[in-house]
């Protein structure tokens, strides 16, 4: 008869996660009981409020004396703190985009084109379950970046993924494409999760432990069966590389980015990337660091292919969302070089890059959602021609964000690229440095092509116009622009802060 000892949870450190989960549950209750009319506004207020409280809780949790929580399955260290903060800030500006509720399906469960759907549209029904879904996903992401055992990591992966699959299918217009995207994302996500789980099993088999520290110790000990470790690392990597859309696990990204409602794409592209790279940094820096000579060449190869492939294929895209998807693939390659660097500057640079890229991405997709014609969003790039003449401010804002993606000086993208490539240089990886610079040059080409298209081509008269942004979308775009500019001109304080704060507790 063992005596039951209650687990030590350290609620203070879990507070941000718990707050978000509580907000999500409250959101479900609102969905169930609040009158339809007031749901939209109360959900928005609740979500933003929840995220702000979570952010406050996060800042308060910094400085607590203990760093382990939930029976050592969560480690709350400097890097985790920064990553969680990035996710929350990105989530706050991304969730404001959900307020344009006419972008989401009136009756998500109805078949596209059915009577039921038509009735719901006529009745002008607005669904709002997207808010709690988003909050659940955010909670998953927050856990994903601080999880230090394999089980917790897998649970977090699923918690963050499942709501995203649903959210991808919620577009009001072009519902078939949206549902196709959701189904694809789900099937492929499940597929990659299976790999991930398989890898976890082998890692356990190798080390007899499910904690990162245990795996690291087993690698240092070096007595266990190497084949198990190898399979474990490979397949866990597959799961993570799928989430960050690295080649050859990228194929879902363009379809899903294109099919999902743009607001969801914005959130997914930005926040998921931070969470997935956060987990990747932790597992490679903490658990697998001892085995670096085995995985580094392979990840280097993947990073190189990803950069080059993403940049080259993006050139030929005719759809702005697909183009941004391939651009995010290319960025995944750049970010991987920070993971591979496996040094302090690599860690700092990756965190900075993630935040800068995430913020700019949300802004860019927010702008994409503004270009409309009578039947919904216009994502065909040819129809963006001459946008600079009709809506100069929007076109200038979009150009600025594209220049940030391209890494032109005085934008956050430049500082990010510069720091991540210097980290690669410091780790002696010249192949990454050279390929990185070359592919960012190629990438710059297609971003600038869009700028040229918007400013130097004559507009086509086909009813494409920019809708006046709602106050929420406006806030999102302005915040995104401001942060992108500030991080480009005065990055030093943020870089300083990151380099003082970012470390992994092993």
């Amino acid at each position, binding site marked *: 008869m063992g005596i039951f000892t209650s687990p030590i949870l350290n609620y203070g450190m879990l507070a941000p996660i718990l707050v978000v989960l509580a907000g999500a549950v409250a959101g479900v209750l609102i969905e169930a009981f609040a009158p339809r009319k007031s749901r939209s506004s109360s959900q928005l207020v609740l979500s933003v409020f929840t995220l702000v409280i979570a952010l406050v809780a996060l800042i308060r949790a910094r400085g607590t004396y203990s760093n382990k929580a939930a029976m050592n399955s969560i480690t709350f260290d400097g890097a985790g703190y920064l990553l969680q903060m990035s996710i929350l800030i990105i989530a706050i500006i991304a969730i404001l985009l959900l307020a344009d509720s006419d972008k989401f399906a009136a009756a998500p469960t109805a078949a596209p084109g059915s009577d039921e759907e038509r009735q719901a549209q006529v009745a002008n029904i607005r669904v709002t379950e997207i808010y709690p879904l988003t909050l659940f996903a955010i909670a998953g992401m927050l856990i994903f970046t601080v999880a230090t055992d394999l089980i917790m990591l897998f649970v977090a992966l699923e918690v963050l993924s499942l709501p995203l699959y649903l959210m991808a299918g919620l577009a009001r217009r072009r519902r078939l494409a949206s549902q196709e995207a959701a189904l694809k994302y789900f099937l492929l996500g499940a597929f990659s999760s299976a790999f991930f789980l398989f890898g976890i099993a082998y890692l356990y088999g190798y080390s007899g432990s499910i904690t990162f520290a245990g795996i690291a110790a087993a690698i240092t000990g070096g007595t266990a069966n190497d084949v198990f470790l190898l399979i474990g690392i490979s397949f866990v990597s597959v799961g993570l590389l799928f989430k960050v859309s690295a080649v050859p696990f990228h194929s879902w990204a363009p379809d899903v980015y294109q099919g999902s409602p743009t607001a969801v794409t914005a959130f997914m592209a930005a926040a998921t990337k931070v969470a997935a790279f956060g987990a990747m940094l932790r597992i490679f820096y903490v658990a697998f660091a001892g085995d670096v000579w085995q995985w580094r060449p392979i990840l280097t190869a993947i990073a190189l292919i990803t950069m080059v492939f993403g940049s080259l294929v993006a050139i030929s895209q005719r759809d702005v969302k697909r183009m941004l998807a391939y651009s995010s693939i290319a960025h995944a390659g750049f970010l991987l070089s920070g993971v591979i660097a496996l040094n302090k500057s690599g860690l*700092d640079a990756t965190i900075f890059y993630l935040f800068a890229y995430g913020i700019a991405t949300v802004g860019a997709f927010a702008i994409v959602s503004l270009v409309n014609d009578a039947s919904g969003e216009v994502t065909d790039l040819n129809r963006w021609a001459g946008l600079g003449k009709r809506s100069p401010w929007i076109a200038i804002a979009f150009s600025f964000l594209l220049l940030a993606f391209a890494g032109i000086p005085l934008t956050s993208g430049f500082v990010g690229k510069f720091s991540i490539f210097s980290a690669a240089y410091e780790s002696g990886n010249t192949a990454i440095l050279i390929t990185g610079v070359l592919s960012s040059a190629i990438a710059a080409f297609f971003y600038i092509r869009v700028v040229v298209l918007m400013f130097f081509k004559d507009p086509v008269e086909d009813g494409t116009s920019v809708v006046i942004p709602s106050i929420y979308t406006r806030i999102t775009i302005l915040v995104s622009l401001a942060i992108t500019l500030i991080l480009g001109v005065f990055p030093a304080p943020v870089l300083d802060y990151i380099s003082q704060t970012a470390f992994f507790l092993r």
Partner: protein
Amino acid sequence: MVTASSLVYLIGLPLFGAAFLLLIGRKADKWGHIFATAMSAGSFILGLLHFFEMSSRATEDRAITQTLFTWIEVGSFKVDAALLLDQLSICFVLLISGVGTLIHIYSISYMAHDENRRRFFAYLNLFIAAMLLLVLGNSYLNLYVGWEGVGLASYLLIGFWNKKPAYATASKKAFVMNRIGDMGLSFAIMIAFATMGTVLFEGVKESVDRVGTPTLTAIGIMLLIAATGKSAQFPLQAWLGDAMAGPTPVSALIHAATMVTAGVYLIVRSNFIFDAAPTAQLLVVIVGAITLIFGAIIGMAKDDIKKALAASTMSQIGYMIVGAGLGPAGYAFAIMHLLTHGFFKAGMFLGAGSVMHGMNDEVNMRKYGGLRKVMPITFVTFGLGYLAIIGVPPFAGFYSKDEIIATAFNSGGAQGIILGSVTLLGAVITAFYMTRVMVLTFTSKARWDEGVHPHESPVLMWLPMAILAIGSVTAGYLFTQGDALVSWLAPLFAKKEEYDELMPHSVVTVLAITAVIIGVTAALMKYQFKSVDAIAPSDVSLATRLARNDLGQDLFNEAIFMRPGQALTQGLVIVDEKVIDGAVHGIGSMAVGSGATLRRTQSGYVRSYAALILVGALVLLAAIWVVTQ
């Protein structure tokens, strides 16, 4: 007196002007132009103060630095946003803000009837700020910021009249060609950073000995590519002629006096790299020599006055690049020619603007003629610029061009003879096409369209032209008095190697003057003493037709850059859609061993995506395995 802490205001004043005028909006329409002009003039006055302060200091203390803030700090690597004012950058500061201010004044009148004049002046201020940042940065990275900034401002200014499609296309071409150049610069910075771990001018200079010649050659070539993009040199020269679509003061400021000379600045600033990389240096000379002839030939055939002047700019910058490629012997002369060219070419562009102003915006010189009498001031100021550019003593261009030709001849061996001959030939052609411009515009019989009543321009327009004309007359003399400019700049460059003078300076001078006489006479015979058709004759030689079509530069670009680029991306799309998909499908089926089952599933794409993931995972596993073994 002024200290290093005021350097930021050199850039700050015009930058503030630009931001202020753009933000305040229509309310500033009435006085915005004056405000912008004052900002630019303020920058010039501050520059002058710095110049006097600098010349009063001892040679070794002349360079001053102001650190603004830490820009990027990653690990051990740190870049400050810092400004460096030394003997080289002060020349540029005075040229940019001085000529810039004159062009501001000119534009007040020239753009008087444009409803967006305030915006135009805001962009002009923005350009001045960016250009000053380019020459004041203390590292390649800071220079790069200015480099991109002038690019941006120039697109805004060229595209200013973006109502007409041709103008928009011009912006686009300038945009794309400059991007190629900019890539060169960013590669150069990255290579420097990767091999030397620093991007400071000072740091790179000290590290030159540590890295091998191949690296330096690579950096040099990349810098040269950057220079060819910005300075419209072969093979990236095609955009300059089309950029003439912008307002004329813009052409004078950006495409004659300042931005297009940034390439020369870059090469001269990087003298320590080129001195240690002879191959790159040779390439510089070759590019310069080709462009100086190329531009001159195009200049002979153009009937559009601005395009003729643009071709001439291309050719004159070719001279500067040749000078810069001749090493320590030529750097100072390249800068001298750059400065004198800044005066006379800006003056002539403003003159061309004045002519267009009087001729209802007609640019075809075949419809001009006889303007000497109706526009006397324009004629005289343009004429002084003309005498300066063809190199008649004692006008400015004579001194600077003469020095470059002499240095070319004396650069040794066969190279010296070839280069000397090329620069001399260039001088002949320059004299020819500039005389042609003069004759067609001012001294031949009037061939005006009906309803055109040319008149002299208002004082705000001719005053800047007159001031620039004074510069065109005196600058060369002043710069060479007691080797003033050469000894001013000397501390920045390596010591000149002593060499045997192949050809004494006096012989070169005689040759150069003979070249001018030949060119002028030929042009007079062809245009002054024969009647000129108002419509360009079509039964001309193949050579003329080629020259009219810019020697086929657009065809060249299409064949060399555009088509292969398109083919590559198209090919990749096919690869992405067909080959990868197909291959993955095939391999995937085999891997799973049940292709039939896979094919029966409804969603075709998910099937191949999943197969791709599977194949990827197996390859990953296999690869790690191989590495481990």
